[in-house]
């Protein structure tokens, strides 16, 4: 899973597989972080509970 696991190899299979995995995790993590931070910011700006 990580390069420090002993069965890890820097071969095409590992790079493609874990490249895809960490990429997906990255998108999900970044997306959620963005949503949470922006929600905190919006809340602090205080534009109430009805902004649509």
């Amino acid at each position, binding site marked *: 899973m990580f390069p420090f696991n002993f*069965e890890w190899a820097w071969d095409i*299979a*590992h790079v493609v597989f874990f490249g895809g995995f960490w990429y997906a995790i990255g998108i*999900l993590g970044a997306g959620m972080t963005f949503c949470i931070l922006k929600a905190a910011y*919006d*809340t602090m700006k205080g534009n109430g*509970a009805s902004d649509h």
Partner: protein
Amino acid sequence: MDSALIPEGAKRCSFPKFAIGIAIVGAVLLWGVYAMFLCWFKGLNQTNMNDYYGFALWIWADLAVIAVGGGAFFTGLLKYIFKVDELKNIINFAVIIGFICYSSALLILAIDIGQPLRGWFIFWHANVHSMLTEVAFCLSCYFAVLTIEFIPNILENRQVNRVPFFHHLAHNMHGVMAIFAATGAFLSFFHQGSLGGVAGVMFGRPFAVREGLLIWPWTFFLFTWSAAAFGPCFTLLVAKITETITGKKLVKDNVVHLLAKISGWMITTYIIAKIIDTIYWATVTIPSLGFKLSHFYTNNSFYGYWILITEVVLCGVVPGALLIIKSTRENPTLRLIAIVLGVIGVCLNRWVMVLQIMAVPVMSFDTWALYIPSWQEIATTILPVAYGIILIAITYRYLPVFPQEQELNSIEPATEAE
């Protein structure tokens, strides 16, 4: 009693009635939980699996719930990426069903492995060449996606939504949902496929093995395609059941017709591919290994040609045809028959691709092996069903799952067909 939590303007049954319903299903759930703990504490000798049936009822249940849960990714793909806007009226529900299916699959897997405490080895010591590794990674990640897709709906609960932070969070999450949905579709493509690959790569099992493209056997693509095709059938079926139980119309007919039509075309194209695959396998792949087709369907008391015909024709060609022809699709009874057949068909396909593989003798002096699950296996397989019913009941009661519910149920005779 709990009226403050119920979505504004929605009518729900009284709390005691609701509680009794939950209690009844809850009893079934507890039975399953008991069996689950038996398996965890006493080990898999509680099952009727054996060294011929290392994969059995549970793996089938896993494959089946994931296949029917495919409605979530496919509806999400259509709604957010291909911008089929009508589907916004059923996407929440599709996501909830997906969430139930995938959490059930993960739970069943946790019961199914012999050393549950070592389950994380599949990630930590991952063998990237194994289809099951791909399944585990994409399944867990996609479950995270489903959770993310489910959260905004939870945050829309009347009380929760009063909290400004949650209100904003739900709003922001809706804003970037397309990105999450795209990631979900990517992950789903791979795990649905690799579940098919699980069987297709077993070159020691002539019943399972398929040729393919690069590292992916044809079953990889067939599984992805069939999940996208039959998943929406299951979404429609559960929606229909929910409508029957609540006695209300929850989704407008045009939405249902649209999803049924897409599903119909997907099923038809899938079944054509499946027929080609079966013919190629029967006439090229297995003869080269010394087998005749009849070897896999005769000389035993259960697996006959009937299973192949039921899967492909009765539960494949027929529902596909019923759903692409406008008049049958828009006939509620025929549509219901089609989606029920479709759901049975995909479950049967997963059964064949797990249990029949194990049943067929490969060595010339080996014998057919049949198996009947133990009650512990059955109880733990029913467990997710009970859990699903409870979760759907709770979400329906407290969350605005169906955006069209109010419009369809406000004035007495709602404007029906469209």
